[in-house]
């Protein structure tokens, strides 16, 4: 058992609607990969193609060197947890978990031993004789997980498994799923539209947009080096400034008729006149009293005025109106030396040009006002 999965140029259309277009992913054995994206972006279709419930129009699915593309679901040996758990309502918890083993014609004694083990793993040993409807949502979720791993598949697919649970329980189960899957060494492909969940759980994340993978990378790559305004907007909070590239006096700057923003790239890096967006994460902004900004050579500094100051415990959040009708959000550690700034206070917002990520194009929804995108 290894669990190395390769999707190569997988496409699926429903009539004129593109569900998935040219998706290629290589997942290493034991890796936790999340497919992240808004609903209808193709992440669930990808998962169903891997499971075998949907047949791709083009492309191949290969698991541990075996081409699965034409193999029916029941011969793929892949574990799956469904969004609504899909527990069999007419079977007890133990029978549900035994189902995949019985389908594999395992001897009865072995089945009982494995079912007991699997239920212990998810800490449901005492509930083996219950019916699914007698369990809470979190318990049902655990049964579904036990059932999906009891036959030790090399690959586990999870389709928004925590979508129906409240936040506290979701966080606890995220941790449990991570521990269990890592303990078993199983490769996991996890579908969610919750970016925090994706950042927290995954080794790597594939961000879906319109049926394609927009970016595939580690959580910090996606966060620190988004390749598009869409990824920047979908993963984490960000301030975005959209405009045209101008060659500037000494280096390229962003021009949108307001305060020019240094792009921190070499002159030949960007075509003058190209439309680009600069992404700056809220915690990368520093907020200082006017004139107090250290004159760092590689910084962008824009004057503004605090519009709202929000205390959030460990951080303070400032919504700041910059000169030139832009608005940004900054997140400052409460322990930071600057202390609290009141609403209405004049300030300078500054950031290291290295923290402004330049991406082509503009955020969806047209002209950006230089505000916070989520």
């Amino acid at each position: 058992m290894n669990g190395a999965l390769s999707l190569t140029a997988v496409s699926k259309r429903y009539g004129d609607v593109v569900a998935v277009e040219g998706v290629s992913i290589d997942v290493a054995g034991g890796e936790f990969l999340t497919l992240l994206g808004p609903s209808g972006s193709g992440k669930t279709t990808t998962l169903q193609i891997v499971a075998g419930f949907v047949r791709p129009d083009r492309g191949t699915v290969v698991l541990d060197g075996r081409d699965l593309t034409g193999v029916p679901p029941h011969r793929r040996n892949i574990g799956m947890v469904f969004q609504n758990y899909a527990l069999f309502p007419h079977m007890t918890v133990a029978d549900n978990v035994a189902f995949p083993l019985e389908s594999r014609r395992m001897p009865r004694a072995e089945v009982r031993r494995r079912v007991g083990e699997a239920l212990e793993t998810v800490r449901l040993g005492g509930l083996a004789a219950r019916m699914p409807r007698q369990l809470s949502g979190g318990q049902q979720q655990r049964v579904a997980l036990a059932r999906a791993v009891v036959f030790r598949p090399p690959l586990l697919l999870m389709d928004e498994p925590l979508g129906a649970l409240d936040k506290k329980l979701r966080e606890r189960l995220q941790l449990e799923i991570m521990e269990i899957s890592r303990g078993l060494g199983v490769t996991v492909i996890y579908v969610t539209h919750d970016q925090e969940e994706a950042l927290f759980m995954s080794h790597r994340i594939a961000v879906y947009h319109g049926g394609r993978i927009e970016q595939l990378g580690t959580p910090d790559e996606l966060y620190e080096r988004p390749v598009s305004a869409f990824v920047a907007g979908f993963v984490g909070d960000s301030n975005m400034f959209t405009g045209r590239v101008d060659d500037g006096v000494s280096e390229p700057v962003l021009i949108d008729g307001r305060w020019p923003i240094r792009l921190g790239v070499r002159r030949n890096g960007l075509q003058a006149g190209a439309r680009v967006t600069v992404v700056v994460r809220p915690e990368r902004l520093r907020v200082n009293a006017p004139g107090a900004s250290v004159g760092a050579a590689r910084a962008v500094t824009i004057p503004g005025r605090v519009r709202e100051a929000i205390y959030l415990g460990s951080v303070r959040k400032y919504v700041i109106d910059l000169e030139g009708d832009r608005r940004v959000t900054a997140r400052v550690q409460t322990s930071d030396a600057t202390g609290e700034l009141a609403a209405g206070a004049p300030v300078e917002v500054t950031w290291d040009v290295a923290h402004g990520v330049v991406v082509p194009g503009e955020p969806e929804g047209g002209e950006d006002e230089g505000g916070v995108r989520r």
Partner: protein
Amino acid sequence: MRPGAHPLLVAFAAGLAGILIGPTLIVTVMSFSAARLLSFPPRGLSLHWYANFLGDDTWVRAIMNSVQVGVGAACLATVVGSLMAFGIVRGRYPGRAAVNALVLGPMLVPSVVLSIGLYFMFVRLKLVGSLPGLVIAHACLGLPYVVLVVSSGLRTLDPSLERAASGLGAGPLRTFFRVTLPLTLPSAAAGALFAFITSWDDVIVAFFLSSPVTRTLPVVMWGATQDTTDPTLAAVATFLSLVTTLIFVVFLFIRRRDPTF
């Protein structure tokens, strides 16, 4: 009277209940009467008419016929109707809507029309007057109910359950017998009960297709109303409604036991 219930509403509800339950109650009460003629209110109490009913070969044979035809028709309608429901809900072929409409036909066509048609068909097939003929005819009557109930059961069956089964390694046959069938069984059982009651209550089709030895209970009752006036008829009628009521109670019981249904 609960506060808030308007006297007019109460009167309306009581009137409605009277119309719905009254006739059955009157017949039931009459069946225990000591009088020699059907009359209401009864004079005196007696089980004489029940003894009369159960001691008479004609009635007992009619009961046996009705039970045999009812059970046979319910089984046939359930098996065929469930398969049809699968074809209608799961099938992907042109003309599915037409098949659905055709299956519901016996529910829409007047029984007399159906009976006459069946009679001439059965004459050729030498089925008139036989129990198998009656079973087939009554299965036709019950079929639409089975198809309706089972197909609605299938439509509410969560498709991810069957996907889960196949994802967990069960082939199509195993998925059907371990997941789809058990979860459809309560609907099929309800359909079977409806089919049985349809057969048990039918007088028109059975009137056309039965012979003196294969006459069902309602047909014999119909004959008896023509030439007798003693309360035996009321006793038979009470028995008939009792069976129907019992079946309905069983139906409700299944429904309460199984929330997936």
